[in-house]
């Protein structure tokens, strides 16, 4: 399989202000949906006039083409906020609404977030890279502040008074003598108003937040405990049929023969064939499955790499290192090799590996597609990139962009694994063939086989350290898995950190925290090795080589809460730590592991993780994300690995691909460091990176066994990796 270029793990985010705009608001839809009120649009740097006048939909006024967000305030005071970001479990629906509520000075419940609908929301590249909080947050806050300003000015005009003297609270503007008060909705008088604002309104400082900064519960939480919320795979349309798609028995397979006659004879079944694409639709899902099973196909699958030789393969197929732009700013040209070890320094060199792993979101890929009588295609699907999926549909069916709408209901998670529109395109093709709406839900096996993986990677590290614990040279090469988290935060002259892209035999793409997990595993375990080499406590060793104040702050916060002390480990109880930073998030993780001397089983007993990503928007959501990252991280650290050979996935089931469960879960304590003086960064990813190295270092502290391959204690042997001295 070819690398998924658009989602390569080393993806570099373009400057959002230069992002291609794909503005497709049907203003009549807006009118029908929302009627009168005030529509506030936020433009980029090329802001048009501050006040673009009255009458949206009226022809004279055009909404500018670089609108990046908007808010509608209805005559009945309902406030709708539109953004192309999507909710995948990271709680952004709640935390964005909190920020808007503060700037608009309304209660949290007054806000409805409309998200991830390509007809209703402005263009957005996608929900990834921990960008929603640092980018969409300020955008929506700016717009909300400007909306509030506009409403106050309307009140001042109505009452012929000074706007500065008016009081705004709880969605109302009140005159200075308190004898008059109008709600935002009343101020619009039900007229259709448009205001265009630029990104310049002053924003509340985090210390003045009232709704943001508090633990507001998940928006619409009740819908999730009553089964009311409809995920993409739950969407049900009148006359809807059910689809299945024929899959090859391996990657890069060629078809020898296909016999569809039995399937086509089944009542109600329709075969949809278009080049290589073969699918079936039926009035019910059970029949569709039976029809797919009735297709007889023979394939030839070519010989392909397996786990056995994967790291040799990745290294021998790697490209020249990417310096500077593609690697990282700290990287030096390859010629500037690491400084040679001096006589009084110890030099170490080691290799670390990570295997391919699967995102395994509990809701697999799913889509419901419908073509209407005008030829317009609407697809409900689970994706982190609704506008990207729209582009895929436009290309696949040669459609005008106005003829495609993608709607993303809050979905059963993604973790970076749902950037593509595979199921959306397939469902649309089936629906076209069926002449009816079609629901397509991938099976777990399809999700394991035909989605994409977190890439495997080889990390080669070399460093020298003086006997007093001072790092004097550093070299870190990553083959295939990516450059995220590759620069070292430790003080060392002329570090060499290089990413070598390679040719992956499996389809790869983004995964929560990207290569930061692999690079932190390697670096933080290697730091532990260096500390032991010079006989220093791992915390003291980090203190000696670290001056980055935010990273030091979380390191000390975690160590304090954990009760870190040198030399506590015994053969049955190990203590380890790790830290790192990426995308504005700073994390330090301490782990305590128990080793059963009888069977060498390792159990993670307790984890303390300290986190700082600027001002805290929702402490409850932030704790939840960090706790979830720790628990999810256990899988990759100890036992998750995709086993593959000759173009086939050998463990495409939960029975053979082990996920973290209740019984694997330690006591988890999250320490939040709230920096109200720093703008909030994203927090869904980087919390993952400290767990594996902290656990690896704890296992070493107990057993003296240094585990350099993730997963460190797989239940089944991973071909090519020596049997682990500990079990999970």
């Amino acid at each position, binding site marked *: 399989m070819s690398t998924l270029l658009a989602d390569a793990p080393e993806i570099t985010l373009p400057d959002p202000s230069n992002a291609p705009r794909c503005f497709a608001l049907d203003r009549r839809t807006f009118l029908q949906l929302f009627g009168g009120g005030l529509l506030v649009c936020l433009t980029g740097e090329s802001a048009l006039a501050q006040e673009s006048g009255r009458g949206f939909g009226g022809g004279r006024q055009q909404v500018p083409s670089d609108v990046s967000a908007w808010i509608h305030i209805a005559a009945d005071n309902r406030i709708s906020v539109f953004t192309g970001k999507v909710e995948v479990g990271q709680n952004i629906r709640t935390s964005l609404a909190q920020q808007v509520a503060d700037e608009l000075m309304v209660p949290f419940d007054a806000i409805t977030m409309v998200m991830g609908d390509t007809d209703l929301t402005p263009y957005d590249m996608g929900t990834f890279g921990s960008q929603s909080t640092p980018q969409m947050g300020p955008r929506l806050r700016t717009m909300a502040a400007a909306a509030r300003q506009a409403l106050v000015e309307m009140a001042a005009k109505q009452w012929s008074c000074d706007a500065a003297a008016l009081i705004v609270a709880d969605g109302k503007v009140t005159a200075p003598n308190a004898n008059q008060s109008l709600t935002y909705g009343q101020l619009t008088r039900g007229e259709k108003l448009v205001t265009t604002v630029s990104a310049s309104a002053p924003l509340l400082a985090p210390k003045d937040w009232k709704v943001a900064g508090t633990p507001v519960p998940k928006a619409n939480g009740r819908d999730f405990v009553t089964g009311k919320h409809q995920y993409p795979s739950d969407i049900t349309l009148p006359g809807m049929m059910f689809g299945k798609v024929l899959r090859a028995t391996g990657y890069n397979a060629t078809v020898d023969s296909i016999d569809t006659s039995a399937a086509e004879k089944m009542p109600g079944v329709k075969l949809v064939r278009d080049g290589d694409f073969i699918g079936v639709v039926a009035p*019910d899902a059970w029949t569709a499955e039976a029809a797919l099973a009735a297709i007889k196909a023979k394939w030839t699958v070519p010989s392909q790499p397996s786990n056995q030789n994967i790291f040799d393969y990745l290294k021998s197929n790697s490209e020249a290192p990417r310096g500077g732009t593609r690697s990282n700013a700290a990287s030096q040209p390859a010629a500037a090799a690491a400084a040679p070890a001096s006589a009084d320094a110890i030099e170490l060199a080691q290799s670390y590996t990570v295997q391919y792993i699967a995102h395994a979101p*509990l809701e697999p890929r799913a889509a419901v597609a419908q073509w209407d009588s005008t030829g317009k295609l609407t697809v409900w699907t689970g994706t982190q990139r609704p506008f990207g999926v729209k582009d895929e549909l436009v290309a696949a069916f040669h459609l005008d962009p106005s003829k495609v709408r993608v709607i993303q209901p809050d979905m059963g998670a993604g973790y970076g694994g749902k950037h593509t529109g595979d199921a959306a395109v397939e469902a649309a093709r089936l629906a076209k063939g069926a002449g009816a709406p079609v629901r397509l839900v991938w099976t777990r096996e399809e999700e394991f086989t035909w989605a994409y993986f977190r890439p495997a990677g080889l990390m080669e590290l070399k460093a020298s350290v003086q006997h007093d614990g001072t790092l004097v040279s550093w070299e870190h090469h990553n083959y295939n898995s990516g450059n995220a988290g590759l620069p070292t935060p430790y003080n060392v002259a002329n570090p060499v950190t290089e990413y070598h892209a390679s040719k992956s035999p499996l389809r790869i793409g983004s995964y929560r925290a990207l290569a930061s997990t692999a690079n932190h595993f390697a670096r933080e375990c290697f730091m532990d090795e260096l500390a032991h080499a010079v006989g220093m406590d791992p915390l003291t060793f980090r203190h000696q080589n670290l001056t980055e104040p935010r990273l030091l702050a979380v390191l000390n916060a975690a160590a304090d809460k954990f009760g870190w002390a040198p030399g506590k480990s015994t053969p049955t109880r190990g203590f380890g730590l790790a830290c790192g930073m990426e995308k504005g998030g700073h994390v330090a993780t301490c782990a305590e592991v128990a080793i059963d001397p009888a069977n060498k089983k390792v159990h993670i007993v307790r984890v303390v993780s300290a986190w700082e990503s600027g001002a805290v928007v929702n402490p409850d959501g932030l704790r939840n994300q960090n706790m979830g990252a720790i628990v999810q991280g256990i899988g990759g650290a100890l036992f998750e690995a995709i086993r593959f050979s000759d173009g086939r996935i050998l463990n495409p089931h939960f029975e053979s691909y082990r996920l973290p469960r209740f019984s694997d879960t330690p006591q988890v304590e999250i320490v939040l460091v709230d920096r109200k003086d720093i703008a909030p960064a994203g927090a869904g990813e980087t919390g993952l990176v400290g767990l594996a190295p902290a656990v690896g270092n704890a296992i070493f502290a107990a057993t003296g066994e240094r585990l350099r391959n993730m997963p460190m204690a797989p239940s089944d042997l991973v071909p090519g990796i020596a049997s682990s001295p500990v079990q999970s």
Partner: protein
Amino acid sequence: MSTLTLHINGVDLPVDAPGDETLLSVLRNRLSLTGTKYGCGEGECGACTVLLDGHAVKSCQTLMSEAAGAKITTIEGLAPDAQHGQLTAVQQAFLDEGAFQCGYCTSGMIMRATAMLNVTPHPTEAQIVSSMNGNVCRCGTYPRIIAAVQHASALAATHSSEKGAAR
């Protein structure tokens, strides 16, 4: 195809389907009771958990014909008035503890916890882990789910003592 009557959430529903169709498929694809989720279809994740005569079963491993004659309860049928009324102690506890992220596993978790608390009203943490270990939360909210089950146990005890006092 055969017609069977399923007793779901207090209502008798006739269903035309092959007897070997799974209860999960019938619920989701024929009756639009989509609160019960597909996660793996192999009985390994618990997202499809429903109650059969009060016992938690994985509906992807239960044939429609096996479910006929039993009282089937899905997430939609737990609270008498799911839209606006009082939630069950377990549902309320999941809300109070924020015991979810994406929420896709939540239906199955709530059904499993409900069945366990019916049998063991005051479970230890070890009993909760043991009883719920077949249910997967890929977002990793297990510590909160354990807290929610403990909270639900306390809520239910409060409710029953209030009822007792009212008598």
